[in-house]
């Protein structure tokens, strides 16, 4: 069932990890922890990682961008070779990765964690150039700051328009958190302004919790689901208009979250299917399409498991343990994992959704009776506590990966 290792025992198997985000950086670091004999290289073009979780607070002028930035020094100290290059080509047969500087890395196992790419061919009018005028801010960094500055510069009274795509995409709850925190910003700083959220969906994660909170806190937020004509149909970045099935809106600020797919290298590797995402084995995260390549994080189709930073980190730890066994011809342990996603409806008002997952018949399924959302009726103190735990989670997970 598990192929014999290609190397003599005692040699140093070479693992290359492409992508230094929550999944990839975790995988690289935990591969070394699982077995120091492994020769691990992390390929990540950016020398500084900008974290998406809590970037909505930066956008809403509640948090400094510096709190989102992390370097790779500690990962290097842990024994991972960090190559700040892009992976420009790969050969699944020869088992090599080519980097932007021309260097070629040979691997025994490859881990792809390229995250989600925005599709600039999906929403009419929304291409890469349009994103400079109507930010997606769905990858953190410059886009985060661009959207924040646009909101700060907006005249009071202007309308902010957000568009949300159909599933699947990176961290759906975060898009509703963003709506909440933008509404919070407008309520406190631009009280004559309002936020219109055009959604390709009718239902979403933690919907009752969000809607109850919006009713209580944000009369300035109007959510338009698809069945009310809210499906986004196109944008005109020059004119700053956003169209839906029923209407066209003039936006003072437009945040367009377009449809997405697995990061490009996953497609180049042959690991993506026609959905644009990568089918994998749940126990090992090995690609179902290309042996010897594992896919982690947003890029992977992981059954019931959501595309979240928490899940990316948890899955990476499982995959690291599995790969450390596979390269020596051993069977990986049967995994189980937990996801917990926190969303901030307001800085001191947190809600969460949790799940426990196990592999069943080749799929990650939720363990019945476990998981679920925060109680719908809970006192403010409960919401405060969840907000504190959310902050604690961010500090803990980033410390585990980058600290």
């Amino acid at each position: 069932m598990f192929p014999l290792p290609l190397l003599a025992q005692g040699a140093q198997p070479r693992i290359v990890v492409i992508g230094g985000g929550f999944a990839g950086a975790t995988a690289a670091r935990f591969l070394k922890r699982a077995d120091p004999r492994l020769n691990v290289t992390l390929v990540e073009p950016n020398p500084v990682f900008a974290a998406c979780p809590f970037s909505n607070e930066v956008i809403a002028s509640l948090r400094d961008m510096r709190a989102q930035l992390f370097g790779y020094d500690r990962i290097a100290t842990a024994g991972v070779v960090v190559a700040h290059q892009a992976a420009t080509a790969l050969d699944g047969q020869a088992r090599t990765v080519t980097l932007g500087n021309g260097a070629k890395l040979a691997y025994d196992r490859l881990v792809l964690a390229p995250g989600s790419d925005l599709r600039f061919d999906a929403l009419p009018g929304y291409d890469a150039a349009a994103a400079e005028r109507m930010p997606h801010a769905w990858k953190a960094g410059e886009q985060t700051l661009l959207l924040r500055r646009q909101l700060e510069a907006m005249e009071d009274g202007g309308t902010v328009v957000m568009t949300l795509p159909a599933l699947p995409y990176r961290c759906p709850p975060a898009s509703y958190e963003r709506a909440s925190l933008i509404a919070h910003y407008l309520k406190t700083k631009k009280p004559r302004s309002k936020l219109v959220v055009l959604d390709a969906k009718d239902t979403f994660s933690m919907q009752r919790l969000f809607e109850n909170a919006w009713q209580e806190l944000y009369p300035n937020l109007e959510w338009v689901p698809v069945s009310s004509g809210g499906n986004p149909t196109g944008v005109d970045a020059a004119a700053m208009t956003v169209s839906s099935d029923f209407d066209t809106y003039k936006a003072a600020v437009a945040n367009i979250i377009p449809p997405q797919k697995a990061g490009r290298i996953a497609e180049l590797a042959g690991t993506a299917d026609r959905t644009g995402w990568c089918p994998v084995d749940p126990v090992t995260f090995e690609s179902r399409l290309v042996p010897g390549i594992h896919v982690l994080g947003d890029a992977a189709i992981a059954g019931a498991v959501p595309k979240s930073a928490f899940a990316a980190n948890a899955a990476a730890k499982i995959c690291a343990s599995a790969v450390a066994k596979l390269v020596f011809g051993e069977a990986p342990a049967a995994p189980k994992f937990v996801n917990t996603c926190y969303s901030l409806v307001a800085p001191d008002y947190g809600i969460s959704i949790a799940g426990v997952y196990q592999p069943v018949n080749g799929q990650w399924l939720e363990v019945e009776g476990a998981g679920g959302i925060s109680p719908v009726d809970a006192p403010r103190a409960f919401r405060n506590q969840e907000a504190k735990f959310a902050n604690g989670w961010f500090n803990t997970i980033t410390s585990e990966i980058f600290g």
Partner: protein
Amino acid sequence: MVAPLPANAVRKPGDHKGRPYSRVVNAAMKARHAFMVMVVCAGMTAASAAEVPPGAASCTGCHAEKPNVDTPVPRLAEQDANAMVAAMQAYRSGQRPATVMDRIAKGFSDDEIKAIAAWFVMQR
């Protein structure tokens, strides 16, 4: 079967100046060689002495391993294994108030909880 590790692959305690995660590597490496360690780790089978029990890897997403992390979430390495098991069982039954641990504990059996608690004790 895995070939014996070369002597220089096994780090000794203190080599990494007591940083907690190096103790994790250290513990795992020793367990591979010394299955007798299993006897101390209640609830673990022979083959899995050095393996992370199902679910345990996810815990450190919220339960910090390193010191100096600003979080109200308790550290697992500081707790007694029996206390951890009792806490998880109380969360699972609803006896102990929780924000999220009840929802998580409901995903694990007694054996799984004991294995996770024992594994965290081994990480000290």
